[in-house]
């Protein structure tokens, strides 16, 4: 059936802020959807609260609403836009849940909006545990036996029927705490007992244990014609027991015979047909290792993280095809863009191996619980493509951007065999490296398999790599050995270390051996048909398929690698825009990135895509093959900036701001001197390399001080210290991750933080806008709420900011984008940071000021002045639009992390509240971030540090005025009493009482400010404030850890009480409304 012509306008739901488990893959899916709809002439209305996405660009949809993803907002927008249809399956779980709610509330019916693609019944059948169980029984597909129980007797009864081992999962506990696997009755009783105690609803799920089974996934699709196909299957290297998002994964499966592969494929197609899904769907299986018994674990009736991975792994655009199916097409009517002669009704054949490795935030959260289980903890992932498993796996490990690229790591070498074996049992993010270490010691493959349940095939393959490493260490590096090393995926830098040679010697051998990387195409069909995709990966010792046409010069854009805290989707936004802008300038755009979740790695964004690790050797391979005019490093975050010196060393041109300028901005001394020369105020600071120097520095500068290592992402390791003790504690732990670079110590000025992004052509500067942070300095800018335009900054101060920006841009000869952070105190603007690159706020500022920053920046970098581009230098005039950015965190997914705001970034995503008044934008910002303004006025817990007590009197009074009852810990209670404000005292931090009131939902929210960051870091879980904050996370009780955030929330609430009727508009309309209310 061809396209349904009744559908003229479609509403697309985005997935909201980036949180763990729901990341950039839905921006990628959403953009594909919008484009697929637009190319059919369909009018697209997009709603998403996440301003860092590409999908919220005004050229992606016809109308873009950056509004909270609430039912109220959707009803308003649907009423206004009157779309014919709605696509639910592309906005992650958020989009799916919203669509179901809109349907259930009768809103879709009321406004006659058709749910396109997968229907409500199908969604419910897949999502509802009981309905799904019934359906599986009906069609004869096995699922692990399970039962929800609320007493030990019920549990024992079930155990009697099923037998051990059994998995116990307490309902609603953080990180599945209190659960476990029981292999006998005694263990079972213990775990069930504690699980029931810990579950807030006194419920546990008992499930037949299939831990140790192989975990296999199928990405399948179906259309209304009942054609069903399998796009890709994937095998987790980690067996069942670790969330697939936290597992090392390969595609296609490696250890399945054809019969097993087909058995599961047949089952997946049977399920997608039974569910009547129209579009993409993911089915997860557990497969026994010694029989053909399998179980269906989970079905996701929508486009997912796995489907983004499958799309990149195969070249098959799942989201795009899902969209075409949703508007009526059948699979065999949709052309295959890669071969241009075949259709989408086929199954990709791979002639390479894909490896995915998750990127975890544990490098940032040193205290975080690294154990992996059924709850996903990774913030992002890397993917690598190789012609063998060995090369693919090696590449993926390199792409993780760890300090080490090798498999055998120093830290495990000191362990005894017994210690190592004991640690092999521990399922955490580093287990694979312990497996590698075990293999160097002749601990047998069988034994490792027995302990880890990792299939022997993978262990043998890793052993091949470990053994080869030994050969490199022991043998003379002949050209033949070198060649083999390259084919196995070893880096020159590693070969140099193993063979105890200099990198330059290796390069000589490389030349002598005539070894050169070649590139292969990802073509969906294993070369059966000619492909037209410009989607490449590198390999060694094979035929090179990369043909470089000479008609246009290329420019290589460095992507930002895996999504991590502090380096997220915003850089994908920048990379994608950079690719478009480079092309607009008549150059061939080349992108390199290692992240499968992004739009930048979609094969039709750049003229050529290189799916490679963000590692200098791989990037030089591309440079050597393509011989581009130069490389753009300013759009890929710190990852790309860090590669700049290495590129320069190898004679590669950096387009835009020079490396010298980057160095000045990043080097403490040079930067201080620059500001001094320009007569721009700055907090005084020192760069120190020794403890003695640090002591001297604090004696000169005084406390409080801000300490941090240089060259870092997202303020990693940054802290405010108030005394020498705290400083020394920090310093001792911090130095180890900055041996190459010094630790920076600055005066900490507790003032208002202000930030701007600017574009410079080396002469003039264009500043789209200036934002003002709600939280005072000391909270990382990525974790601060921010307002545009500034509300409380005097015009003369703004003039200063513009003047300083001009001076800095000229002095650094910035060509392209830059970001400056200031702190204002007593109307003096101190410059605290200059980033000579695109920053986190570029997408937001581009959208709210309607200034295509990346494009202007690239034009400037390529020699077109701001004036030539038709812009007036200086600060862009503000419009009626006001917006508030609110950060969003993923603490519930990570155990043992202190949720308190600090100089170190912790948020994973952000939302934007947009309107024409500050108050309304603020209200929307909070709503979009998931806060509510309930009518009920219960208790509020106040527990403040001494520093904040005097600053919070107004907050306490507002709480009383709004009708809340204040509960306060002793110190805070005493302070409030002294100010004549009534509160109920909780003596001695009675945690049980606090937990009880959270459990019973008596507490509406908590305001708790940490005593000091150093303290909470040092004392960890012993710290009482830390406990309050983590318990609040566990019970989803809002917890404000900065009094500024709390004050803003109460301001929003007060406004909302009197103005509950919000209106919603597309972003362009906010800018057009001239009359501010």
């Amino acid at each position: 059936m061809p396209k349904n012509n009744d559908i003229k306008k479609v509403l697309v739901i985005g997935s909201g802020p980036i949180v763990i488990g729901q990341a950039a893959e839905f921006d990628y899916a959403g953009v594909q959807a919008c484009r697929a709809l637009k190319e059919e002439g369909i009018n697209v209305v997009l709603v998403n609260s996440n301003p860092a996405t590409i999908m919220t660009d005004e050229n992606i949809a016809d109308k873009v609403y950056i509004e909270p993803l609430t039912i109220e907002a959707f009803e308003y927008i649907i009423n206004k836009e009157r779309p014919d249809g709605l696509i639910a399956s592309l906005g992650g779980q958020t989009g799916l849940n919203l669509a179901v709610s809109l349907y259930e509330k009768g809103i879709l019916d009321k406004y006659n909006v058709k749910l396109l693609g997968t229907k409500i019944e199908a969604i419910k059948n897949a999502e509802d545990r009981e309905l799904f169980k019934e359906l599986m029984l009906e069609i004869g597909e096995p699922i692990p036996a399970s039962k929800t129980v609320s007493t030990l007797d019920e549990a024992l009864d079930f155990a009697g029927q099923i037998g051990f081992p059994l998995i116990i999962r307490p309902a609603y506990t953080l990180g599945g705490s209190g659960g476990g696997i029981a292999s006998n009755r005694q263990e079972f009783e213990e775990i069930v007992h504690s699980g029931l105690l810990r579950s807030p609803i006194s419920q546990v799920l008992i499930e037949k244990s299939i831990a140790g089974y192989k975990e296999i996934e199928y990405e399948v699709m179906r259309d209304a014609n009942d054609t069903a196909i399998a796009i890709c299957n994937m095998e987790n290297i980690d067996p069942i027991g670790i969330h697939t998002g936290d597992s090392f994964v390969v595609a296609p499966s490696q250890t399945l015979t054809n019969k097993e592969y087909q058995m599961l494929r047949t089952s997946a197609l049977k399920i997608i047909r039974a569910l009547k899904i129209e579009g993409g769907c993911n089915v997860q299986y557990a497969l026994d290792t010694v029989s053909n018994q399998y179980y269906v674990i989970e079905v996701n009736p929508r486009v997912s993280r796995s489907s983004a991975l499958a799309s990149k792994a195969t070249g098959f655009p799942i989201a795009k095809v899902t969209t075409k199916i949703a508007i009526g097409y059948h699979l065999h009517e949709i052309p295959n863009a890669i071969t241009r002669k075949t259709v989408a009704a086929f199954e990709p054949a791979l002639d390479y191996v894909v490896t995915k490795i998750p990127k975890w935030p544990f490098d940032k959260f040193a205290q975080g619980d690294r154990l992996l289980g059924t709850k996903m903890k990774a913030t992002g992932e890397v993917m690598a493509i190789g012609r063998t498993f060995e090369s693919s796996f090696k590449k993926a490990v390199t792409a993780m951007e760890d300090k080490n690229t090798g498999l055998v790591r120093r830290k495990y070498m000191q362990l005894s065999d017994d210690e190592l074996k004991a640690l092999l049992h521990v399922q955490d993010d580093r287990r694979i490296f312990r497996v590698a270490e075990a293999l160097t010691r002749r601990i047998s493959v069988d034994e490792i398999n027995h302990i880890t349940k990792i299939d022997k095939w993978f262990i043998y393959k890793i052993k091949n790599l470990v053994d080869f490493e030994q050969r490199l260490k022991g043998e003379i590096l002949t050209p033949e050995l070198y060649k083999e090393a390259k084919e196995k995926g070893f880096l020159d830098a590693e070969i140099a270390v193993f063979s105890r040679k200099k990198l330059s010697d290796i390069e000589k051998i490389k030349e002598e051996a005539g070894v050169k990387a070649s590139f292969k195409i990802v073509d969906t069909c294993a070369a059966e048909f000619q492909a037209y995709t410009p989607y490449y990966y590198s390999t060694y010792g094979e035929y090179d398929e990369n043909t470089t046409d000479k008609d246009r010069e290329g420019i290589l854009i460095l992507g930002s690698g895996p999504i991590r805290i502090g380096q997220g989707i915003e850089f994908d936004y920048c990379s994608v825009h950079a690719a478009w802008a480079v092309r607009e300038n008549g150059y061939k755009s080349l992108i390199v990135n290692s992240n499968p979740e992004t739009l930048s790695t979609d094969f039709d964004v750049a003229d050529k895509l290189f799916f490679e690790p963000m590692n200098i050797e791989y990037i030089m391979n591309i440079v050597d093959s393509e011989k581009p005019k130069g490389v753009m490093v300013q759009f890929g975050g710190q990852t790309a900036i860090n590669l700049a010196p290495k590129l320069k060393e190898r004679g590669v041109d950096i387009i835009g701001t020079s490396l010298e300028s980057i160095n000045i901005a990043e080097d403490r001394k040079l930067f201080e001197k620059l500001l001094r020369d320009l007569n721009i105020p700055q907090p005084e600071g020192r760069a120190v390399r020794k403890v003695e120097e640090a002591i001297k520095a604090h004696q000169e500068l005084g406390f409080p001080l801000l300490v941090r290592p240089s060259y870092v992402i997202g303020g990693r390791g940054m802290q405010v210290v108030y005394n020498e003790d705290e400083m020394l504690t920090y310093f001792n732990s911090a130095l180890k991750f900055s041996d190459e670079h010094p630790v920076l110590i600055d005066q900490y000025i507790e003032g208002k933080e202000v930030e701007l992004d600017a574009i410079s052509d080396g002469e003039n500067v264009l500043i789209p806008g200036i934002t003002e942070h709600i939280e005072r300095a000391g909270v990382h800018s990525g974790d601060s709420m921010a307002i545009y335009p500034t509300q409380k900054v005097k015009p003369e101060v703004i003039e200063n900011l513009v003047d300083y920006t001009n001076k800095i841009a000229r002095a650094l000869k910035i060509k392209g984008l830059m970001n400056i952070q200031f702190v204002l105190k007593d109307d003096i603007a101190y410059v605290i940071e200059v980033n000579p690159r695109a920053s986190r706020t570029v997408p937001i500022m581009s959208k709210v000021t309607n200034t295509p920053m990346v494009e202007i920046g690239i034009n400037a970098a390529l020699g077109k002045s701001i004036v030539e581009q038709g812009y007036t230098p200086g600060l862009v005039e503000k419009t009626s639009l006001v917006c508030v950015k609110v950060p969003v965190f993923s603490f519930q997914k990570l155990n043992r992390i202190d949720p308190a705001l600090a100089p170190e970034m912790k948020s994973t995503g952000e939302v934007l509240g947009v309107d024409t008044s500050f108050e309304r934008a603020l209200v929307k910002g909070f709503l979009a971030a998931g806060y509510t303004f309930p009518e009920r006025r219960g208790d509020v817990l106040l527990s403040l540090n001494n520093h904040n007590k005097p600053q919070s009197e107004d907050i306490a009074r507002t709480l009383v005025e709004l009708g809340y009852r204040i509960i306060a810990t002793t110190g805070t209670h005493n302070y409030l009493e002294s100010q004549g404000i009534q509160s109920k005292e909780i003596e001695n931090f009675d945690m049980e009482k606090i937990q009880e009131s959270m459990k019973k939902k008596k507490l509406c929210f908590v305001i708790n400010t940490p005593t000091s960051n150093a303290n909470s870091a040092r004392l960890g879980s012993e710290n009482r404030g830390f406990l309050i904050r983590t318990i609040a996370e566990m019970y989803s009780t809002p917890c404000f850890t900065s009094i500024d955030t709390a004050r803003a929330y109460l301001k929003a609430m007060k406004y909302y009480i009197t103005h509950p009727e919000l209106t919603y508009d597309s972003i362009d309309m906010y800018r057009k409304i001239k009359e501010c209310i």
Partner: protein
Amino acid sequence: MAKLLLDNGRVFEGKSIGAEGTSFGEICFNTSMAGYQEILTDPSYAEQVIVMTYPEIGNYGLNKDDFECSKVNATGLVIKNYCEKESHYKSSMTLSEYLNKNGIVAISGVDTRELTTVIRETGAMNCVITTGEITDELKEQLKKYSMSKDVALNVSRKNIEHLSGKGPKIGLIDVGVKKSIIDNFRIHDCDLTIYPGDVLAEEMLKKDFDAVVISNGPGDPQDAVKTINTVKELVGKIPLYGICLGYQILCIVLGAKTYKLKYGHRGANHPVINLETNKVFITSQNHGYATDITTLPSNCIPTYKNLNDDTLEGFRCPELDIEAVQFHPEAAPGPSDANLIINQWVAQIIQRKKDKGFFSKFSIKEIMEKLSRGKENAKK
């Protein structure tokens, strides 16, 4: 070391992972990502050297359940990366052990993607694979080599085999039958009598079969002269079904023309559309020849078409009770989506038996109508 020499002069080198020796064949690639055991033992690959496009081969070893035939029929194997250590609970030997045992020459470490591209661009050609040197003599031998005209009879059984069952009585002509085809009929408890490819028609007609099935097999269908002659005499006298080579033989018997494809269809991902129901499914394919759809006689209805290149994939002839498909409904390796075709055939056979008549109940007019609809669909 082992070497592969193509007829166009290209040489690929790699490591020998099979037997010592030299063998000739037609080079062809298969894009299945699993199933090397089934492929190696599929008789349709007789006198062919197989290139697996999927690079990791040998992963799960070999097991006793997945053989398509008791011996290796391919004459050589070319792969990218050999997994020396296999891992599977059913595995009874490694691929290398198996190849050695069966005297098959095999190479690993070849850029199979480049090789595939060469085959795709140049078209099917002969090759020699050797663990020795490529001498002028060898080159000369390759020039002279051509696939045996009797390749199908060579892989066919020499004796009649009877597998009794309570279901319909079926005669099966083995021109290289895969075990899975037999298994698929056996699932329905068919009573199978399997004949060599050169069986005479009168011998089969004596048996009072409910239907005769002509199997898959290797080679150019036009070379299968003896089988063609036998089938000619069966037409109209007994319902006939064909798979792959069996389908091509039926096409020839009915007057259609077959031709050699540039590089064949070999893989587990071929989309096929049913021209009568418009349903699409993914099939397992292995053929180097196709039937020219325009030469299909008017009493035949095209039933399936390949969505990749629009070639004909099946037909039926109601007035003569003939149905056949080019692809492999028995899969092995590949998806079993098309399994239902064998189910339908068996159901048809049983139904006809009940109706006590072989021939179609359709009137000529109805057949003509169906014919034109089929043609129209085919054009689309």
